[in-house]
């Protein structure tokens, strides 16, 4: 194998393996391409849901919805995550990347798989939604593309593990791996479970589509499929929490309040997050209540505990760093004087807040066994996961892109004013999408539904007027989010291909205040009142909203 060549990053002093750099670039670019395609499909879906616009005909709506799910939920996010894994292993550990040729094999497999599945969907014979529940059957190459993609991603995850082993053997770092790499490792471990589950269910389903297997039990399929479908969202959570820590470190020099606590929280993810496959099976026949209660709660909410810990330690570490840097007045000087004009910070902080308030709370409430009865398969579900995966993961990934472009692509950001406003526009739009879909879902509106007026139905029914308003507001929010997404794609493409080459150091750090005060981080001097106030507000909102939904549940027909 050829010798690895490195460059030294003038900003961080890190040694960057050029093979890893090329792989990071390729995966990140593929991710952004699929984000653009999938985002466009998403916009058409939202505009069709808006009753006054009702853009697409029914067959195209369901096709666009299938493609939207695949392109953004699977392809954009996993390609980007592979880039993050390579960065967190090779770059942060000063190490050559393991088996770069296999990295290219993985990349081309994933790309081919993604394209094959997209072609299958666009041919119109695979309008089966992202979930492809049997007995509904897609074309053979729909499944084949997904399998290729999953195997490719598995190879890439293997390269991440290999790189960690090499770094350890060649002693490219001192002591333990950085927290961000630890978070990436968490994501990678969950990814193995996820992708293996995907292979276990998609391979027989593929054989079934070829006629080699007679039936696929629909309940069994759902159980195993969601071990991929939901767990892949847990890769996202681990990866975007790692990204939050990374951005806090790069902009503020923030160190974790406690390495032990933050790593412990990631460990809780590894142990418990995968149980959440059950979230999708709470109103299914044939499963016991004991099974549902234990699994849906991640064994007594231990993974939720992990997220609530990060919800304190991420803003807490920023607050501690900012106070040390001189912004020490009152509760919120540290936050007020944060670099809100820097899209890496504004994107990251909005991702943090919205993931907690919109995605997190709604997810736990909806995942409560009985409360799921009033939410299952309503628009509340996509409302929730646009709060986690779009406001949380996608916004965090967009934010770190503004740091990766100067550091890895070594290009200056083009159109900095556009970049400055991008996270706000996208974040606001996504917050609207999430809230208004949850609102419509609370009113009972079905997800994956072309016509909420039921104009062609043999019977009469209409959802309440308020639902129409919710879907109109959802359409407007989607336009804002799509514009924000477009700005992102324009800035990335312009910077990567036409940006000025970066020479020398990049000024990453946010400006500091007057003077640095005493050191922080020890168990004696921790002072984070602003963060405590924020988590206090979060906790009260969580508790109230949780019990309000039990009240809603108690109003429906008695059933047992």
């Amino acid at each position, binding site marked *: 194998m050829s010798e690895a060549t490195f460059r030294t990053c003038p900003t961080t002093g890190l040694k960057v393996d050029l093979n890893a750099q090329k792989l990071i670039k390729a995966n990140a670019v593929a991710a952004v391409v699929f984000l653009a395609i999938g985002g466009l499909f998403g916009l058409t879906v939202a505009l069709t849901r808006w009753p006054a616009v009702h853009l697409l005909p029914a067959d195209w709506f*369901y096709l666009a919805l299938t493609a939207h799910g695949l392109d953004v939920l699977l392809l954009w996010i996993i390609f980007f995550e592979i880039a993050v894994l390579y960065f967190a292993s090779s770059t942060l550990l000063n190490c050559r990347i393991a088996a770069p040729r296999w990295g290219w094999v993985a990349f081309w497999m994933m790309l081919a798989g993604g394209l094959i599945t997209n072609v299958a969907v666009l041919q119109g014979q695979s309008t089966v939604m992202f979930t492809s529940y049997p007995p509904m059957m897609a074309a053979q190459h729909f499944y084949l593309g997904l399998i290729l993609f999953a195997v490719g991603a598995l190879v890439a995850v293997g390269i991440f593990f290999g790189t960690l082993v090499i770094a350890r053997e060649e002693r490219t770092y001192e002591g333990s791996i950085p927290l961000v790499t630890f978070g990436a490792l968490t994501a990678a471990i969950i990814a193995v479970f996820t992708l293996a589950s995907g292979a276990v269910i998609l391979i027989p389903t593929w054989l079934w589509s070829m006629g080699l297997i007679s039936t696929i039990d629909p309940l069994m399929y759902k159980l195993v499929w969601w071990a991929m479908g939901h767990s892949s969202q847990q890769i996202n959570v681990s990866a975007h929490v790692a990204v939050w820590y990374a951005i806090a470190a790069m902009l503020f020099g923030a160190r974790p309040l406690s390495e032990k606590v933050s790593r412990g929280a990631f460990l809780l993810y590894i142990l418990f997050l995968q149980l959440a496959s059950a979230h999708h099976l709470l109103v299914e026949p044939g499963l016991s209540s004991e099974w549902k209660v234990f699994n849906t709660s991640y064994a007594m909410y231990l993974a939720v505990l992990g997220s609530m810990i990060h919800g304190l330690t991420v803003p807490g570490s920023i607050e501690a760093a900012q106070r040390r840097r001189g912004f020490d007045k009152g509760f919120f000087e540290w936050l007020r004087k944060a670099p809100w004009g820097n899209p890496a910070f504004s994107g990251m902080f909005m991702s943090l807040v919205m993931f907690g308030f919109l995605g997190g709370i709604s997810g736990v409430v909806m995942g409560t066994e009985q409360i799921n*009865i009033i939410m299952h398969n309503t628009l509340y579900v996509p409302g929730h996961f646009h709060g986690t995966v779009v406001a949380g993961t996608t916004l965090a990934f967009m934010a770190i892109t503004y740091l990766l472009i100067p550091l890895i692509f070594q290009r200056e950001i083009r159109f900095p004013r556009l970049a400055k406003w991008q996270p706000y526009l996208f974040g606001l739009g996504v917050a609207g999408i999430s809230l208004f879909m949850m609102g419509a879902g609370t009113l009972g509106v079905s997800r994956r539904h072309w016509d909420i007026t039921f104009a062609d139905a043999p019977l009469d029914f209409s959802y309440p007027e308020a639902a129409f308003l919710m879907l109109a507001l959802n359409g407007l929010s989607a336009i804002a989010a799509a514009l924000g997404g477009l700005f992102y794609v324009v800035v990335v493409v312009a910077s990567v291909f036409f940006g000025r080459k970066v020479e020398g150091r990049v000024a990453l750090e946010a400006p500091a205040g007057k003077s640095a005060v005493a050191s922080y981080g020890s*168990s004696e001097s921790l002072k984070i009142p602003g963060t405590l106030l924020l988590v206090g507000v979060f906790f009260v909102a969580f508790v109230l909203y949780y019990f309000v939904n039990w009240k809603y549940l108690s109003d429906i027909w008695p059933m047992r």
Partner: protein
Amino acid sequence: MAITPPTARLWWKEPVHRTELVWIIVAFLWGLVMFFMMIWWHATGEQNLATETYRTTPNAFYAKTEAMVQQYRVRDVNGIPVVRPPVGSDVYMIGRMWLWYPALELVKGQTYRLHLSALDLQHGFSLQPVNINVQVHPGYQHVLTITPDQAGEFSIVCNEYCGLGHHTMLGKIYVTDASGVTP
């Protein structure tokens, strides 16, 4: 920093500040509250999803449903039979592309055993405006014991995608008061 190895090599021996400890304890206890809330609701709440399930086949389930329709049909709505089954009896409802079959007429405050199954694909039983949502699978017969506590006309939407006519799939449950009148 979070992007560099921990400064203290023995980071797992560093003491944890009280602020973090208190939050961890609060979050853990809240998790326990939410966990036991589900169990408590099983013991005392009135809305719990039944787990009574049988394997069936589309033919067998259709035969049972059709027998009920023949016996208790009272009228039609847009060509779909409306069935008024005896109070407390076993009631069958089919989800198929693209109709919930048959329509039911139930009595307020009475309890019925509602059997749900699908003939072709998965469907989503979504009773509106009550907002009860249950997944319906082919091959599985799910028995919910329900007690309508409001009179009126209720619609069943399909909320699991089931092909191009999915958005036309509806069903009806009419709930009358004790004298047989639908308000």
